[in-house]
């Protein structure tokens, strides 16, 4: 079942709180009003996503979109991605990688692991803002699958 973007919960996993806040503000300015849940490390994010039973069954029926940074203090975003794709309930969840790395091998690996979108985070402020606002516009028009 496909739910409209309005009900989508955005899970943002980003260790830099400043970046997280700027991302949130700029997404909002693009007209995105969805709930945003922010995590600054991988452990907390995983325990939220997979739930107490570790399967992600808690989110059945919800629509979740994950904004994922690859460079986290306790693990890499790829670990989180792999765990989600390994779970029966979150294997189709929308995952957008938003990270500073633009190494083509990393990009390739992320798509191999099942990432839906890979956005390199520009490190010039103007381009950063521009990229985030475009992401916001993108989020406001796309459809996202529910967790099964």
């Amino acid at each position, binding site marked *: 079942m496909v739910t409209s973007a309005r009900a989508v919960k955005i899970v943002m996993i980003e260790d830099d709180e*400043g*970046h997280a806040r*700027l991302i949130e503000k700029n997404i909002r300015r693009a007209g995105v009003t969805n709930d945003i849940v922010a995590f600054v490390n991988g452990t907390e994010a995983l325990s939220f996503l997979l739930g107490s039973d570790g399967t992600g069954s808690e989110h059945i029926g919800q629509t979740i979109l994950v904004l994922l940074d690859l460079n986290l203090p306790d693990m890499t975003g790829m670990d989180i991605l792999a765990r989600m794709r390994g779970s029966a309930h979150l294997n189709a969840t929308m995952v957008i990688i938003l990270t500073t790395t633009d190494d083509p091998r990393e990009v390739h690996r992320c798509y191999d692991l099942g990432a839906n979108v890979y956005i390199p985070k520009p*490190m010039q*402020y103007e381009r950063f*803002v521009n990229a985030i606002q475009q992401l916001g516009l993108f989020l406001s028009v796309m459809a996202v699958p529910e967790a099964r």
Partner: protein
Amino acid sequence: MNRDTIISRSVPLILLAGALLLLVLVLSSLHFANLTSRNAQEALDAARLNGRVMRLFTLIQDAETSQRGYLLTGQEEFLKTFRRSENLIPLHFRSLLPDFQSIAVSSVTVERLDALIKTKLDELIETVKLKRSGQAEAALAVVITERGKQAMEEIRQIMVRIDAITNNVGFVRLSALTDATRLLLISITGGAILLVVLVGGAVALILWHSRQLKKASAALELQNETLEQKVRERTRYLERANRELQSYAYIVGHDLRAPLVNIMGFTAELERASGRFASYLLANPLPDHPAAKAAREAVQEDVPEALRFIRSSMKRMDDLINEILKLARAGNRTLQAEPLNLAALIDDVVATLKHRLDGNNTVVTISPDLPGVVSDRLALQQIFANLLDNAIKYADPSRRAVIEVFGKVVGEDVTVTVRDNGRGIASQDNERIFELFRRSGRQDKPGEGIGLAHVRALVRRLGGEVGVRSTLGQGTSFDVTLAADLNRAKNWGEQW
């Protein structure tokens, strides 16, 4: 002083002393041989003289015997010997004179002998003459006077004396000969022994020396190997350090960016918020109160000013980080060696700077006989773009800027010089200008202090070095030395 040093110092001295001694022995052998031969000659001479003196005496006796025979028989037959002796005796006597002198028969004796022989011969001739003229009695009377007999007696005595002298001389010479021969033998024997010792010593010394040489060369070889190994290790270490430094620069640059994005982002947020507040204040004027005035000032002047400074500082920081990243990326880039025409390459670089040249009315001359190289195109373009850019940027406005580019081949390297007549660099800054973020002279031109640091890093990667010669107020020359063939330079580097 160890044993080897003692040997190497003393043995040659001993050998030299031995050689000198040998020379002395040879010379003395020569001397003794000479002495032997002289003594032998003299002994021989003495013996021969003795014989000849005896012969003289025999001749006189023969003459007397022949005279007696004639006086007794009156037959001419007997006179034959007499006639011969009569002629031979004076000749024989004269031939003996030098020899008498040489064996020291006194001249008195010789004169006496001469007189006696004459007397005897006179007596003999007289008697023979008388007999022949038939006066036999008178002849006998002459004989009876015993004048001849006495002379003969005395001659005999002198002969005996001469015999004794010659014998003695012969003996003395023979004994000297024996002595000289013995000495000769001794010196020859000594020489032979010494020769054997010296040859043995020399052979031992040579053997010892060659052993030392072998030892030394083995040690040297070991040292060389160790040195090469050390250089290799050192080079590897330096290369690793260089790589680490570059990746460090990259990581630092990259990681500095993340907080900078935050600072910029929240500065923008602050600006936005302050703008909101300012427009609110504009729409709703505050009462005329000092605190309200201060608040208006803060929002309209202080905050925007602070934000302006924050922005310009961040801009500068962002530029610096960009340059660091550029340097780090340039250091990581793989070089592509290809045959290049330097004159054409630099001409292309000049073309990209054309608008600035025209603006400054600058003349650039590129020597057509710049050597060709096998090197990396992009790196060379960046090197010369930076150098030419500096030459244009730091031209002296009081005169027309002239930039010359020329070069030459030096062994396996190529040196290209970029010379300008710009404002020059103070000599104490000649090294500083190549350092990162360092600039020289009046800071009246835009720049980060990156260009020459970049040039130096690139030139070094191309297997060369860049140097500067400058006179303040007159101009500057940058000498870029490159490996003519980057592949060969790289191979050489890998060997180590």
